[in-house]
């Protein structure tokens, strides 16, 4: 670890006596992989989606030198920094930008911060999760750094060779990044679940450094203001990483009927999802939408009630381990991807399941 830090310091050194030395050095250091992870936190912890990015960074290189960037205000960001410092053995540094105005992530300030951090750290890779946060911020940052980013990476075979889904996941595209550093990408978190040995990381916690954001260009940053976030408080596990997901389509017919689904979800310890049609009809809020432009999920068990199986919905759940479909229409396309299907009325099946399903342990 110390050797890596020394190498990085040497590379950043602007001392003239190192100049000729540095040119040959920098050509071999070209292969030196270092990654800046633009991370999210909640309740004092790094979010699971950002932890998946760590697994992706490890896939880029087992010798990756990782810096985790967090921003926010108050004690929760400090606590998250502590978590970040010990969550993965490859994390060597945690960078924290703490200020009142950073309480809610806005793309304009985040892009300036990441650009500033990149100019100082010269990372070979910059990564974020493919969440609404990552998708909002990373491309803007890439434009500031004049590089082409890659969205929604599902597989990494080499430091600059990636696979990403296109056409709603109906095709997979293997791409090679041939541009200058940094190589920037967003990671589909359901594709990277790292089993991390926490004790290895805890033995050698990363350094936590505060970032000075006083030089942020207010002319750019001051043009947008956060006003409000309306979200539903729920006891249900997070849709993005639940082990079991139960989804309802428009056939549920009302918000009331979705409560039936919730009951089943509670019994199974599952998260509740919905199709675009159900959200459009107003039965459930938008954050339950699973699909090409909603959330991508890959649970152990996905049960779809009254879901026809449109291409755009399949895009969001086709990587689930076991898919169950319940639909009155035997010709519904969903049955083509389901492992187990029941051609039946969901209003009869759900109560029966409620009765017979074993209670979650």
């Amino acid at each position, binding site marked *: 670890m110390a050797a890596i830090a020394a190498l990085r310091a040497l590379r950043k050194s602007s001392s003239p006596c190192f100049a000729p030395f540095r040119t040959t050095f920098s050509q071999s250091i070209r292969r030196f992989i270092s990654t800046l992870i633009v991370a999210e936190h909640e309740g004092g912890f790094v979010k699971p989606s950002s932890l998946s990015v760590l697994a992706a960074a490890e896939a880029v290189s087992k010798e990756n030198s990782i810096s985790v960037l967090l921003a926010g205000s108050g004690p929760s960001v400090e606590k998250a920094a502590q978590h970040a410092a010990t969550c993965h053995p490859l994390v060597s540094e945690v960078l924290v930008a703490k200020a009142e105005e950073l309480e*809610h992530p806005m*793309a*304009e300030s985040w892009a300036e911060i990441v650009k500033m951090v990149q100019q100082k750290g010269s990372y070979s890779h910059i990564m974020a999760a493919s969440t*609404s946060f990552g*998708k*909002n911020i*990373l*491309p*803007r*940052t*890439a*434009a*500031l750094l*004049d*590089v*082409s980013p*890659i*969205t*929604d990476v599902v597989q990494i075979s080499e430091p600059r060779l990636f696979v990403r889904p*296109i*056409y*709603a996941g*109906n*095709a*997979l*595209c*293997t*791409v*090679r*990044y041939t*541009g*200058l550093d940094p190589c920037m990408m967003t990671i589909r978190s359901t594709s990277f679940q790292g089993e991390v040995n926490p004790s290895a990381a805890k033995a050698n916690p990363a350094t936590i450094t505060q970032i000075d954001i006083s030089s942020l260009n207010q*002319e750019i940053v001051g*043009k*947008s*203001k956060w*006003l*409000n*976030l*309306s*979200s539903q408080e729920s006891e249900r596990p997070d849709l993005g990483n639940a082990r079991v997901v139960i989804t309802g389509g428009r056939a549920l017919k009302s918000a009331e009927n979705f409560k039936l689904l919730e009951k089943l979800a509670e019994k199974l310890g599952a998260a509740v999802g919905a199709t675009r049609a159900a959200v459009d009809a107003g039965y459930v*809020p*938008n*954050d339950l939408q699973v699909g*090409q*432009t909603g959330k991508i999920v890959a649970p152990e*068990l996905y049960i779809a009630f009254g879901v026809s199986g449109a*291409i755009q919905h399949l895009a969001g759940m*086709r990587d689930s*381990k*076991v898919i169950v479909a319940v639909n009155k229409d035997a010709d519904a396309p969903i*049955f083509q991807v389901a*492992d*187990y*299907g*029941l051609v039946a009325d969901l209003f009869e*099946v759900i109560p*029966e399941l409620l009765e*017979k399903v*074993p209670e979650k342990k």
Partner: protein
Amino acid sequence: MKIMVAVKRVVDYAVKIRVKPDKTGVETSNVKMSMNPFCEIALEEALRLRESGLAKEVVAVSVGPTQCADTLRTALAMGADRAVHVDAGTAHVLPLSVAKILRALVQAEQPGLLILGKQAIDDDCNQTGQMVAGLLKWPQGTFASKVVLDKENQKATVEREVDGGIETICLDLPAVITTDLRLNQPRYATLPNIMKAKSKVIKKVTPEELNVELRPDIEIVQVTEPPKRKAGVILSSVDELIDKLKNEAHVL
């Protein structure tokens, strides 16, 4: 105020796409092409803002080969006042290059608002809007499900669909907005408007004329089909389902 809308010609959303046997891409010849659904929503929003008196002119732009003009004709038929076609030939234009082209057009046209679809349903990148905003140093309201313009104070209040629910932000104009599905329901072009569109102007330019260099930083190595799922079974009762899930799939 002028509103600029960027639209993209893509494979129609209902088409079942096929990967070419030589793995170089997806089959697009003899396949129905349409305006990207998110771009239709972007155009519709611009038209509504003009109709409510908050804007004077809607300019539609598109980057791509000759056939792009068809998509722009549709935009004109829906009600756009003018169109600009940036002819990039058959070159594969990356979002960063599209963003640079849009920046050049914005600098020439000086709109108060640039609206785009949040993503194209072919490459699913979801990058262009954010990139133009960065290049222009404009604020961005992405994944918009509602836009309210305050012309007097030159601000836009945007509700956005984010992972946690609906986020509301306020942007100083000029700004970039990218549209999400629930922002509006796009209109169909009526026959009289389709006829009127034939005489509307589509200006043609090239990336070179805009001083934009198309830099191919991402190389497509191959395009393949996703792994196929094993065929499933139709069961006959809830009891059977529970049994299979418990004892065969081991997920319950």
